[in-house]
C-alpha cells in the first residue's frame, strides 16, 4: 500500500527547472529517505506535497485520492527553515498551530499536555519562545509537527539544532511513530542517520530522480564484490602478486580489501587466500549510503 504517489511531477520557476518529471511512491508505515545534493529539488518536491506550491505538470495521490486540502490535517511537516513566533508563549503557540491543523482546542490541549510531559517540558508552557534555547524551541517544534497524529510526516533535516542526546530522543520518537504505523518522509544530508532509519530511499539530483528503492536492495545492487579480509599474520607480501581476476583495493597491517573483477565466486577467493595465509575474518563490503550517494551523483554529472 502506498501512502503517497507522485506521478511525473514537473515544476519550474521563472529561471530554472526545479523538478523534471519526477515519479515516486512512498510506502505506508515506512521511513522514506529523500536524498539529494543542495538545490536538487527536494524542497520543491516537499512543498508540492504540502500544497504550498502547485506542480506545473503531473499529479499526486494521497492514499489513492488526488491530493487536496482535506489532506492537510493528515500531513505533518517540519520544514528545514523553521521557527516560531518569538513573542508568543510556548503553550499558546502550540495550541494555535494545532488548531490550524484542524484539532479542536480541547483535543489540542490534551494531546499537548501528554507530549509536554513526555518530553518533560511542562514548565515551559507559559514561557515566551524567545526565552528558550534553540534546542528547546526545536523540541516544541517537533511536538507541533506530530501533535495532530498525521498519517504522513515530512521531516526536513529534523536533527539540525539538536545536541546528540536530544537528537537521539528525537530519533527514538521517529522510530516509535513509525512503529505506530505512521509513514515518514525523511530528508537529510546526514547519511549515517539515513542508514539507521530509512527503509527506502530516493535520490534526486539536478531536478531528476536518479535512484529509488528499498535501502537493502539498493545496497545489494551497489555492491562491487569487494571483500574485507582479516589475516592472522602480518606477512602479506603475496598480495602484491594477485592473479588477474583479483584486485587489491587497499591493505594495512593484517587487513586487506580485495575486489573480484570477473564472475568468479567468493568461495574461490577464500580458497585462494587459504593457500597463502591464515584467515581470521572474511566479510563482503556493503557500500554505505554515503558512498552510494557520492557515486551516483558523480556518475550523473558525467
Amino acid at each position, binding site marked *: 500500500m502506498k501512502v503517497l504517489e507522485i506521478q511525473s511531477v514537473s515544476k519550474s520557476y*521563472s529561471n530554472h527547472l526545479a523538478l523534471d518529471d519526477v515519479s515516486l511512491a512512498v510506502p505506508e508505515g515506512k521511513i522514506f529517505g529523500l536524498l539529494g545534493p543542495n538545490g536538487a529539488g527536494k524542497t520543491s518536491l516537499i512543498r508540492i506535497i504540502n500544497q504550498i506550491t502547485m506542480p506545473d505538470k503531473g499529479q499526486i495521490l494521497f492514499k489513492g485520492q488526488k491530493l487536496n486540502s482535506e489532506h492537510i490535517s493528515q500531513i505533518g511537516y517540519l520544514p528545514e527553515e523553521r521557527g516560531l513566533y518569538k513573542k508568543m508563549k510556548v503553550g499558546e503557540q502550540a495550541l494555535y498551530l494545532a488548531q490550524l491543523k484542524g484539532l479542536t482546542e480541547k483535543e489540542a490541549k490534551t494531546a499537548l499536555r501528554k507530549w509536554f510531559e513526555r518530553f518533560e517540558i511542562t514548565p515551559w508552557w507559559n514561557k515566551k519562545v524567545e526565552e528558550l534555547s534553540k534546542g528547546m524551541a526545536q523540541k516544541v517544534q517537533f511536538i507541533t509537527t506530530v501533535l495532530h497524529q498525521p498519517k504522513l510526516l515530512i521531516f526536513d533535516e529534523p536533527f539540525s539544532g539538536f545536541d546528540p542526546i536530544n537528537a537521539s530522543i528525537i530519533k527514538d520518537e521517529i522510530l516509535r511513530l513509525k512503529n505506530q504505523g505512521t509513514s515518514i518522509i525523511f530528508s537529510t544530508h546526514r547519511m549515517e542517520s539515513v542508514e539507521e532509519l530509512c527503509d527506502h530511499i530516493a535520490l534526486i539530483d539536478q531536478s531528476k530522480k536518479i535512484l529509488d528503492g528499498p535501502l537493502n536492495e539498493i545496497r545489494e545492487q551497489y555492491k562491487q564484490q569487494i571483500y574485507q579480509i582479516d589475516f592472522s599474520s602480518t606477512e602479506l607480501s603475496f598480495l602484491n602478486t594477485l592473479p588477474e581476476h583479483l584486485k587489491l583495493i587497499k591493505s594495512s597491517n593484517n587487513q586487506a580489501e580485495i575486489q573480484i573483477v570477473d564472475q568468479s565466486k567468493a568461495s574461490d577467493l577464500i580458497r585462494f587466500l587459504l593457500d597463502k595465509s591464515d584467515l581470521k575474518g572474511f566479510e563482503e563490503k556493503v557500500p554505505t549510503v554515503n558512498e552510494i550517494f557520492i557515486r551516483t551523483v558523480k556518475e550523473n554529472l558525467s
Partner: protein
Amino acid sequence: MNKIILIIKREYLSRVRKKSFIVMTILGPVLMASLMLTPLLMDSSDSELRTVWLCDESGLFEAEFNNTEAIRTKVFTESVEQVKLLFNQSDAFTLVHIPDTSSISISDLENNVNVYAHKPISFANKRLISRNIETVIESIKLKNEGLTRETINKTRASVSLNTIILDNSGTEKLGSTEIAMGLSMAGGFLIYIFIFLYGAMVMRGVMEEKTSRIVEIIISSVKPFQLMMGKIIGVALVGFTQFALWILLTFVLSSLATSYLMNPAELNPTELIDGAELILQEGANEQNVLASILTELQSINLSFLLLMFLFYFVGGYLMYGSLFAAVGAAVDSETDTQQFMLPITIPLIFSFIALQTILENPDSSLAFWCSIIPFTSPIVMMGRLPFDPPMWEIALSMVLLIIGFIFTSWIAGRIYRVGILMYGQKVSYKTLWKWIKQS
C-alpha cells in the same frame, strides 16, 4: 473559513496584549489632550509679575494702564532722560515713553511711542502695550469726530448666511458646508492616518513571520492568501480597538481637564490677555453657536456621511493593507522596504494634499478624478461628500474601490505567496513582476 478566524484571533490578541499597545493607547489621548490644552495652559500660566514703567509726557494715558495680575504699572513724571537712567539700573520689564502731545498731532503719536527694554520683548507683550495706547488714541479721535464708543458699538453688524439648497424638485433644505466640511475633512484625515499606521503594522507582521521562519509551517496548514487576509483583518480590528479607546479616553480626559481648568467662577475678564479674551467672546456667543451647530447637524445627512466614512475607511485600508503585506513579503529586513514603499506612500500623500485643495474647489476635474481612482478615492471622496457630488459619481467611486481592492489583493497575494518563502534574495521590481506572472 474556520482557520482564517483563528488567524484573525491570534493577530488581534497577540497585538492587543502587547505592552506597547497598552502604552500607546494610554499615551495617545494624554498627548492629544495636552496638545489641545497647552494653549489654554500657556495663556493662564503667563503670570510672572512684570513692572512696566510709564513715562507719559502727554498725561493722557495714565488711566489706561491698569495694574493686572501680570503687570504692575509705575508712572513717572520726570523727564524721559532721567527715567531712562533710573530704568537702566532697575530690573523693570519695560519703559514706555509717550511724548508730549502738545508738540505733535495725535496721529503722529501713533508712530512715536518708544518702548525701552533690557532684552527684546515678546509679540504678546508688545500687543498688550500697543492695545492700551490704541484705545486711548481711538477715544481721542472719536471725541474729535463727535462720536462715542457706544455709538460705534451700536452700529456694528454681523451677518451669518443661511445657505438653502434648492433642488430640482423644488424642495428646500438647509445646507451648511462648514460643519460637514469639518467632519469629512476629519474623516479623510482619519483614513489617511489609519492606512499609514496599521498598514505599516501589517507589513512588519509579515516580515516578522518571514524572518522568524514560522511562515512555512503555517502555510502548510492554511493558504498564503488566508494568512495574508487574516493578518490584514486582525490588524484592522486592532486599529479599531485602539481608535475607539483613543476617542473614549481623549473625551474623558479632555472633559475632565477642561472642567478643572475652565472653572467659570474663577475667570475674571481683566486677568486674561489677548488670546483668552477671544475665547471669552466666543463663550458669550456659545449658546447661539451651539444652537446653530445643532440645526446644521440636523441638516447634514449624518448617517449617510457615517456610512460613507465606514465604507471608504474599510475599503481604503483593505486596498492598501494588502499592498503593505506584499512589501513585507518581498523583503528580508525593514531597511529594504524603502524602494517598495514609495509607490504606496505617494498616492496616499498626494490624495491628502489634494484633499485640501479640493475643499476649495469641489467640482474641479482634479477633484473628480481623484475621487474616482481607487488609490486616492478613500481620502478625496470623503472631502467631496459634503458638496453633494452626483450620485453616479459616488456609486462609480465605490464600485471602483471594490474592484481596486480585489485587484490589489490579487496582485499582493501573488507576490506574497512567492515572497514569504524567498530568503536572502535581492528583490527588484522585475522580480516582483516575475512572481506575479508565476503560476
